């Protein structure tokens, strides 16, 4: 019962925060986004002041009154200073690169200040460590935060808590921001032997397409173009007065491989996707072209970083929402 109520409250709080501080790539902290209350140290200080005030009354001592009131006014001044230390800070997410599940996702963050200096800002998530940074006046402070990942797909982040107690520690001013980091988490790679090669369909017809310029097999001649290597010039033809020609060589491309979800073995879907991920990485390492076949999705065989990214992305988002 109470657990249900608590969950309800938490949801309400989350919704309220979302309305009040909507997710954005760039957030400037202002009075709508900052909360401020006295800290424990502040409460203790008020207690001290109360004791001092009683002393001032009992001893009828004007100077103790004066000291008490100075400190009380200081408490009030500290409220503003703490608020101002957080207000005006601009937080900007500078993207994070994709990671494999289980790794710490690096999240780029730039804090900038328009006028004031902001000191001792603490950035934290409940799951991740605390960072303390200073932002110089009119300058920027870039840092990378790390967030643990467990599941593939778009990384779901808690709100980042930006807090400060500077300068006197009597107040804590904080904001909870969602900087809308788009971090894709690839499945956790599982190392398994490669599947038996299955030739891509229609490869018979496109035999010539699978040839790339190489050094092995003589392919023919073509008219010389400036810049062609001198060693490949067909000197014999030139001596016969047939003009300058370059020799063309080619090498057959290694057979490409289709990776199919059905051929990946694992306890559950996640493990099978992990196996596929492992294959993609292995093939990319071996410079061997591969294609990806998932239910409802096909990626033609190719090689290279862009292709790798496309395949990993497809694996990461398989069966999930394509956009956050």
């Amino acid at each position: 019962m109470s657990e249900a109520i608590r969950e309800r409250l938490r949801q309400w709080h989350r919704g309220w925060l979302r309305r009040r501080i909507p997710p954005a790539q760039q957030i400037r902290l202002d009075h709508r986004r900052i909360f401020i209350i006295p800290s424990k140290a502040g409460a203790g200080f008020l207690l001290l002041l109360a004791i001092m005030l009683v002393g001032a009354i009992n001893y009828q001592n004007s100077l103790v009154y004066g000291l008490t009131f100075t400190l009380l006014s200081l408490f009030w001044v500290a409220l503003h200073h703490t608020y101002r230390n957080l207000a005006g800070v601009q937080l900007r997410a500078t993207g994070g690169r994709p990671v494999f599940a289980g790794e710490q996702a690096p999240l780029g963050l730039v804090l900038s200040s328009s006028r004031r200096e902001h000191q001792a800002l603490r950035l934290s998530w409940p799951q991740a460590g605390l960072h303390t940074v200073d932002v110089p006046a009119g300058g920027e402070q870039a840092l990378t935060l790390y967030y643990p990942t467990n599941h593939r797909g778009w990384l779901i982040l808690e709100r980042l808590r930006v807090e400060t107690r500077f300068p006197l520690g009597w107040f804590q001013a904080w904001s909870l921001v969602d900087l809308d980091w788009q971090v894709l988490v690839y499945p956790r790679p599982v190392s398994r032997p490669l599947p038996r090669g299955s030739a891509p369909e229609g490869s018979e017809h496109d035999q010539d397409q699978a040839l790339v310029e190489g050094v092995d097999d003589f392919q023919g001649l073509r008219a010389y173009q400036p810049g062609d290597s001198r060693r490949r010039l067909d000197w014999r033809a030139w001596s016969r007065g047939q003009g300058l020609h370059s020799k063309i060589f080619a090498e057959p491309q290694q057979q490409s491989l289709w990776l199919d979800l059905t051929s990946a073995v694992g306890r559950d879907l996640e493990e099978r996707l992990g196996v596929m991920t492992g294959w993609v990485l292995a093939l990319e390492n071996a410079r061997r072209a591969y294609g990806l076949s998932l239910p409802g999705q096909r990626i033609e065989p190719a090689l290279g970083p862009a292709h790798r990214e496309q395949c990993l992305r497809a694996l990461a988002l398989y069966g999930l929402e394509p956009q956050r």
Partner: protein
Amino acid sequence: MKDVLSAAQDAIGEVLLGKSQAIKLALACILAKGHLLIEDLPGMGKTTLSQALARVLGMSYQRIQFTSDLLPGDILGTSVFDRNTAQFVFHPGPIFAELVLADEINRATPKSQSALLEAMEEGQVTVDGATRPLPDPFFVIATQNPVSQSGTFALPESQLDRFLMRLSLGYPSEAAEKSLLQGDARRVRLDAIRTVLGREQLCALQALVPQVTASDALIDYILRLVNHTRNSDACAWGLSPRASLGLLAAARAWALLEQRNYVIPEDVQAVLPAVVSHRLRATHDPAGHGGDSLARWLLSEVSPV
């Protein structure tokens, strides 16, 4: 002096019906001393536009049809051995003209492409160790077929960055096409064009562009635009400083065409799609067709004030 600019626009408009915006952008591109890339299907009037421009501005004109077997020498010129003088004599290539139309640039091999683009960038040509300057108002209009067409070599991003603007003429409106069909042949109309602007006048106008006032507020706007592309995840990469320089120069030229001696945000907005669309790529768009929509998105994201 500025009246001649509107006269020039009108004169070209006579030939290329219903394309006043593209004409104005092309003129702005020339005034800002930038080069122009036109991406369109064949037969949309690319050649007409460049010829009309050359005539109106009184520039010498050369056309290079790019093909897959075009060699750099075909563009830059070659040294030929002259038996009489027993010396190599340089025969300048078609690039030694004030206005060069590089047609279907993406049909040529990258080697030939880069020969042209390097000449564009440096304003001079080096053949056989001798450096030869190109004429002073030097303006290249390159056209390319949409990349998806077969048998093309797409220009790499680094080369695209050298064009100040990329335009797309598009189909004419119905009314324009109707009058096109009813009127004289294009060839006849082209011949009818007179030179409106002399070479000296053009140079003077080009010298006027950097003097157009761009206030701090406006430069801040341009910076905000550029920074937005660098910081946003929607763009695969941000705009280069060359792009921001180009944006400012184009906006100044546009302001001049609007007969104003200061730049307002609307000038920037008018030229921005042409200037940045070929330099931007959406993050998840390997083909790179999304530049136009990205430019519009950019304008709506950044407040001009």
